[in-house]
Structure formats: structure tokens, C-alpha cells
């Protein structure tokens, strides 16, 4: 059905809401990439089968819905029962008949499937009461987990395209721009440029043809909010882009999606087809006379393509090499025409901003960072997953109240934000309210919202080396400071972690870092030293230990670390099984021993030891012991 007027859209909306209201009883199965990996599709199919087999769809109006990512990936597959709001975690397909029998028909809760709060071991039945969800405020992710991403009617029942209808029929393009300005929204891709300012600059550029682009090349390792939005609520991205195009007078849009996100491509493509059919995309949108269409372009696998000028070259079929942006892409972007490029999360927020008003969005957050921000909370933290919170929330609240604290209650060491362009923030800054400025001041950055929690078993030199290795592979190689500088910097770090560090290395690192920051062509190179400089700033003693003592204090760098089993070993034999090189000897219930000549210092034993009876010590001490 093609919607051709404001009234027809209102009627469609009413219909969709009515259908939704009539389907009170629902089983929502999370089918995000995380849950799919643990068997969510089978779970959804098993529910569908059970419901059909028992005729429950007719009898009690029960339906099953595959939704986008609920965010709590670690506990997947996740299933939510409505209207009760009951959440089951780690649901296996084989248990579905039992769940239907007991929970749906019998109204009985199966305790073993409930979420267990690691803080107090309490089992929490209600989705909304779980600390991970309770503290969130969702704007960009407003419908993820609630709707079936492949069902337009479902999305519309949850206010999708309400903002678009308002923009098209009640607002002029300039009023839309004003509303976005009022919201104070800044780019969610990392740099934090004001959305409205970018749009105005593009609108002011001469020329008849302009482009609206969506950056879905979420390359920061440890970040996956854009993936979840594209997979779980593709219509929110389309709606934002259509509104943006209307404000700018653009008629062509592209979404550039990472090749590593196949499900995002599929869901976006399906959403585009559905939106076109419904008259939400294409010619004469909703009968308003406005034309705009969107195409999807799959990236080829290059982190640098997240950089705007590289992304635009890639869209033109070329290698992803950035160019100088002394002339902004808002004036000279894709095919040298005025272009607005915004991040997935930025676009996803636009529909809600227009629907609820800019003032509503601006009422959340801090003075200069308005609204909410999505983060992926991962690493050594108990509750890993995707969250959205008002700007200004403290790191401590995020990591301890939402994340449940550090895994295995080990000591917290640092949280890495901003991906390879960001930095590591130490414990004494945990009360930092998270916004663009504060993170930058702390030597890190917002980036695409990855938050990687690190415990004491994390070597900061190794972490910096990890990012350098990543960037060395991802540098396009166009400019000297980035191409040659990263390679040389990585060489210095290789020496550090292998115990070949020399006096003066820290100074060499600092000189090179400054040259790269000032001299590199694009942000990839300019920000590449950030992980190095931030770890150097907060964890300098670890660097010094690597150089002066040939020791890795965290016991991670293999060439510097040896392992041994302490006397309190109860002989559980778990380490024996975990050791990949058979370096551990011992019979059950007796003290085990590590043979240093066979040990490769991988740490597998330490990670599995239930009694914490394995310790690390500097490898050079081995030589001393032999002498003694």
C-alpha cells in the first residue's frame, strides 16, 4: 500500500497501533548478532512452532516477534514476555516447550532462566528492574528490542516516521533546521560537531545537487552500537536521513555500511524496500511533493573509510584515501558536491528530536553535550552489552551500577574509550561525567562509544601496542607521518614488550607522537598516538618497568613473564586441561607444577584457576633461580 497524504499516514499509524494493542501477549526473541550466535533463531523458530502447534495464536492471541539487539548480549539468547515484562536469559531452543507449558500457560516463573544479579546473587524477573536496563534512557535506540526490524507496521506503531510526517506537513525545511539546532545534538561518530551547524553549512553551499550520507562504517574495535541500530531499527536511520534531506533539499542518499555487518545490510535493504513501497521513500514522499531515495553501499574493509573524505572516495569506487579538508565536505564532498555525512546514531536520533521537539532532547545531558549517548560496555566487566544514557553520566555509574563491576571482582585498572583514537582513563578519574569535552580533557575521546573495561590483568604497554598494531594495518599509507611513524612506533613497542627496551625509548616515543599529531594528514594519523600518550600519562611506571626492569607488572607480556603455581593449589586439575603445551604436571588433588621450559606464558592456566593459586613473576628471575 502506498501512502499518499498526511491523512492516509495518520490512518496507517492508527491501524498499526490498533494492531499492536490487539496483540498484548508477545514473546520477544532478541535476534541481534550476539544472540543469533548463541542460537536465538532456533529459539524463535521453536516458539513459533509451539504456538502454531498448540493453536495459541488463535486461542490467546500469542505471537512471537524477532527483534533487534536488546543489548545484553552476554546473557543471550534473551527472551522477553509481554505484557508481563518478564526476561529469560540464556534460553535454549530445547527448553521452549517447557517454557510455553509452565510460563505462558501456567503463569509459573522458571527461576533458573531469570537474570541473576552478580552484585547480590538475587534473581530478577522483570526486565525493567534489572540494573543494566533500569538506568538507561533510550533515544537513538528507542525501538530496538521492542520492534521487529523487518516489519514497517510494527515500527510505525512505535512512532517510526511520526517525526517525518510532522516535518513534511507541519514544518518548513528551515524550521526543521531550527529544531535540530535547539536540540543541541552533536555528531555521534566521535568528533562531536554540531549537527545543525553542519547542515547549515551544506545548505549555504552553492549548487543544486547535494547528498545526504550515513556513516555506518563503525570501525572502532569494541564498539557496536551502530550495528545494533542498523540491525534492530533500520527505519530510525532512514527516517532521520529523509528529514535531513528535506531540511537540506537533497534528493540522493547513501548509507555506507561495513562489510563485516552482513545482517545490518540485509535489514537496511529490506527496510528501504518496504519504505519505498509505502511511499516513505522515493518520489513524492507521503504525497508531500518531496523526492528522496537512499542506496546502500557496502564498504570493502578499511577502518580509514570511517573518515569522511575517505568514505566519500570509497563511495566513488576508489581507494579510501583521505584528502585535506581545508574545503569542507559540506561544500565539496561526494563527487565534489555539497554533502552532509552523519553517523548512524546521529541520524537515528533525528526522528525523535523532530517528534518530541528539540527542547526535549536538550533537557537531557550536560551544558555542551546534549541528549543521550549509546555506548558498548565491554571487556572485563560483568554485564557487557549495549547501553544508552544521558550525557554526563559518570564512568563509575556506568561501570559499577550498570556494568555490575569488574569481572571476577578483580581490581579495576582503566577504561578505554574512543577506540584507536581514544585513550585509557585510570581509576582516579572514574567520577568523570562522560561528555565530549571531559573525555578529551582526560586524553581520550568519545569516539563511537566503545567502553572497554580493563582489570589488573591488563598490561597498558600491551594495550597501546595493540592499538598501534591495529592502526599500522589500517593506515592508508598516503602520508609519511602516519605510514612511517606508525611502523616505527610499533617497532619501539615490539621491543618494549619483548624486553628489548632501551633508555630513551620514552623520549623517542614522545617526539614521534608529537610529529604524528601535528604532521599527519587525517584524524587517523593525528589521533593515532592517543592510546600511547594516555597510557604513558597515567601508567608511566609500567613503561619504566618494561624498560628498566625487563618486567611486565601485569604479567601479560609473554617474553617478560613466567608463571608458577603456589602452595594453596588444591589440585583441581583445571589448569592441566587448559594448558595448550602440556607444561603443567600434577595429579588430581595434589599440588601441580609448571615446567618453565615448556610454558609459553599464555596465561590460560591463570585465567581458569578457581582458587587464584597461580602467580606471575618476571621471567628474568628464572635465570637468577637457576644460578641459585
Amino acid at each position, binding site marked *: 500500500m502506498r501512502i499518499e497524504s498526511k491523512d492516509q499516514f495518520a490512518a496507517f499509524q492508527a491501524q498499526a497501533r490498533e494492531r499492536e494493542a490487539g496483540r498484548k501477549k508477545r514473546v520477544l526473541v532478541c535476534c541481534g*548478532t*550476539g544472540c*543469533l*550466535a*548463541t*542460537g536465538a*533463531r*532456533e529459539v524463535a523458530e521453536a516458539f513459533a512452532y509451539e504456538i502454531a502447534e498448540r493453536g495459541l495464536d488463535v486461542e490467546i492471541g500469542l505471537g512471537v516477534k524477532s527483534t533487534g539487539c536488546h543489548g*545484553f*548480549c*552476554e546473557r*543471550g539468547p534473551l527472551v522477553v514476555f509481554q505484557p508481563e515484562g518478564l526476561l529469560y536469559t540464556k534460553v535454549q531452543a530445547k527448553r521452549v516447550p517447557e517454557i510455553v507449558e509452565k510460563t505462558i500457560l501456567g503463569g509459573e516463573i522458571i527461576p533458573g532462566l531469570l537474570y541473576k544479579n552478580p552484585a547480590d546473587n538475587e534473581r530478577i524477573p522483570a526486565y525493567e528492574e534489572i540494573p543494566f536496563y533500569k538506568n538507561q534512557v533510550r533515544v537513538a535506540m528507542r525501538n530496538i528490542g521492542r520492534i521487529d526490524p523487518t516489519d514497517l507496521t510494527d515500527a510505525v506503531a512505535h512512532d517510526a516516521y511520526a517525526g517525518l510526517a510532522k516535518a513534511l506537513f507541519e514544518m518548513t525545511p528551515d524550521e526543521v533546521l531550527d529544531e535540530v539546532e535547539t536540540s543541541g545534538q552533536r555528531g555521534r561518530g566521535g568528533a562531536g560537531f554540531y549537527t545543525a551547524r553542519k547542515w547549515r553549512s551544506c545548505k549555504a553551499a552553492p549548487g543544486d545537487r547535494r547528498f545526504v550520507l550515513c556513516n555506518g562504517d*563503525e*570501525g*572502532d*574495535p*569494541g*564498539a*557496536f552500537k551502530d*550495528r*545494533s541500530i542498523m540491525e534492530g531499527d533500520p527505519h530510525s536511520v532512514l527516517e532521520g536521513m529523509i528529514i535531513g534531506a528535506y531540511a537540506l533539499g537533497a534528493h540522493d542518499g547513501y548509507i555506507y555500511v561495513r*562489510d*563485516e*555487518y552482513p545482517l545490518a545490510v540485509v535489514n537496511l535493504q529490506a527496510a528501504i524496500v518496504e519504505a519505498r513501497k509505502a511511499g516513505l521513500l522515493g518520489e513524492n514522499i507521503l504525497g508531500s511533493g518531496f523526492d528522496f531515495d537512499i542506496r546502500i*553501499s*557496502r*564498504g*570493502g*574493509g*578499511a*577502518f580509514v573509510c570511517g573518515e569522511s573524505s575517505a568514505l566519500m572516495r*570509497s*563511495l*566513488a*569506487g*576508489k*581507494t*579510501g584515501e583521505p584528502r585535506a579538508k581545508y574545503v569542507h565536505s559540506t561544500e565539496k564532498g561526494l563527487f565534489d558536491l555539497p554533502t552532509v555525512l552523519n553517523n548512524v546514531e546521529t541520524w537515528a536520533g533525528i526522528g525523535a528530536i523532530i517528534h518530541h521537539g528539540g527542547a526535549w532532547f536538550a533537557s537531557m545531558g550536560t551544558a555542551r553535550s546534549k541528549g543521550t549517548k549509546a555506548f*558498548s560496555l*565491554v*571487556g*572485563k566487566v560483568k554485564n*557487557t552489552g*549495549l547501553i544508552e544514557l544521558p550525557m554526563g553520566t559518570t564512568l563509575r555509574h556506568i561501570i559499577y551500577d550498570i556494568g555490575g563491576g569488574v569481572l571476577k571482582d578483580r581490581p579495576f585498572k582503566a577504561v*578505554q574509550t574512543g*577506540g584507536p583514537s581514544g585513550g585509557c582513563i585510570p581509576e582516579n578519574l572514574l567520577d568523570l561525567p562522560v561528555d565530549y569535552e571531559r573525555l578529551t580533557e582526560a586524553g581520550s575521546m568519545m569516539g563511537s562509544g566503545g567502553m*572497554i573495561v*580493563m582489570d589488573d590483568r*591488563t598490561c597498558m604497554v600491551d*594495550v597501546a601496542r*595493540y592499538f598501534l598494531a*591495529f592502526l599500522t594495518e589500517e593506515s*592508508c599509507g598516503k602520508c609519511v607521518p602516519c605510514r612511517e611513524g606508525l611502523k616505527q612506533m610499533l617497532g619501539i613497542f615490539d621491543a618494549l614488550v619483548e624486553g628489548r627496551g632501551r633508555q630513551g625509548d620514552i623520549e623517542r616515543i614522545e617526539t614521534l607522537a608529537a610529529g604524528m599529531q601535528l604532521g599527519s594528514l587525517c584524524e587517523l594519523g593525528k589521533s593515532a598516538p592517543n592510546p600511547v600518550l594516555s597510557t604513558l600519562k597515567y601508567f608511566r611506571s609500567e613503561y619504566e618497568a618494561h624498560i628498566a626492569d625487563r618486567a611486565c607488572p601485569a604479567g601479560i607480556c609473554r617474553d617478560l613473564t613466567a608463571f608458577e603455581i603456589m602452595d594453596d593449589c588444591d589440585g583441581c586439575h583445571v589448569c592441566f*586441561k*587448559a594448558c*595448550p603445551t602440556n607444561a603443567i604436571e600434577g595429579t588430581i588433588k595434589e599440588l601441580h607444577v609448571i615446567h618453565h621450559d615448556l610454558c609459553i606464558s*599464555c*596465561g*590460560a592456566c591463570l*585465567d581458569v584457576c578457581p582458587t587464584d593459586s597461580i602467580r606471575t613473576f618476571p621471567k628474568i628471575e628464572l635465570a637468577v633461580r637457576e644460578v641459585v
Partner: protein
Amino acid sequence: MAEQPCVDLSKTEAILGSYPHEEPSLIQVLQDVHRAYNYLPCDVLVRVAEVLEVPLAKVFSVSTFYKAFSLEPQGDTIIKVCTGTACHIRGAGQLVEELERKLGIGAGETTEDLKFTVKTVNCVGACAMAPVMIVGEKYWGGAKPARMSRYLAEGGSDEN
């Protein structure tokens, strides 16, 4: 250049038929070609250059710039070990080592019988289940070196 068997160009023609014949289509065409042949055969690149009217040197440049493309035939099952930050600090390196022990190949290599190709990939966005390994299309979250045989045995056949 390695000897390459003659390839069937009809698949290429079909792919080229579904895109406008212009440079912006290049990466999209190469993606589809890569999916169809499991690598980018050089005959195909020559044909793509001709039809899209892009200089062959540019086609080669793009084919070697992007990580998604391989110019060498790849194994039937592609094993991707995610080396994103979350996976890194939760032990992705040990998975790569275990694969090296099991299959005798390192990252970026293919077994002689063309059964497996091992790749390390940048964050696949499944960080909450780190470390993650993808065998064929099957994702394994919380992957452990000790379970590698199982991943290899089940991975290729699963359609998930």
C-alpha cells in the same frame, strides 16, 4: 603471479549486469565477485575493468587496498578470529595460536587442501561475547582454545 585456473566468466557478466557501468560501482561489483568466486581471479578483474571503464591499475589498486578482497583462492571454510579490543584482552591471540597448532597455518593463510583459510578480522561488533570466532557463518562466542576441534568440526556445516 601464481598460476590460476581458467575461471567461468558468466558469473561475472551476471554481476556486472546488475550495476551501472561506472566507477562508483567498482567496490560493489568486487564484493559480489568475491562472494561468487571466493577470491578475485585476475581474468575477472580484467573484465571488470573493461566493462566499468576503470583503468586496470585502479581496479588492482582497489582490490589490494581493501581487506575484504583476496587475490588468492581461499579455503572452503573461512575462519575469522575477531581481534577487536574486547576480544584481544579476553584472549583472541590464544585462539590464533591454537589454530596454528591445529591447522599448521597462521593468520591470512590457507591450508594446502584448500579446506580452511584463517583470517584475523577487526571487531565484528559482538564484543559482549568476546573472544569471538566465526567459522563459516557460525559465530562462536566466549571461544576457548580447548574447544577448537569442535568449532572446526561443526563450523562449516552449520547454517546459522
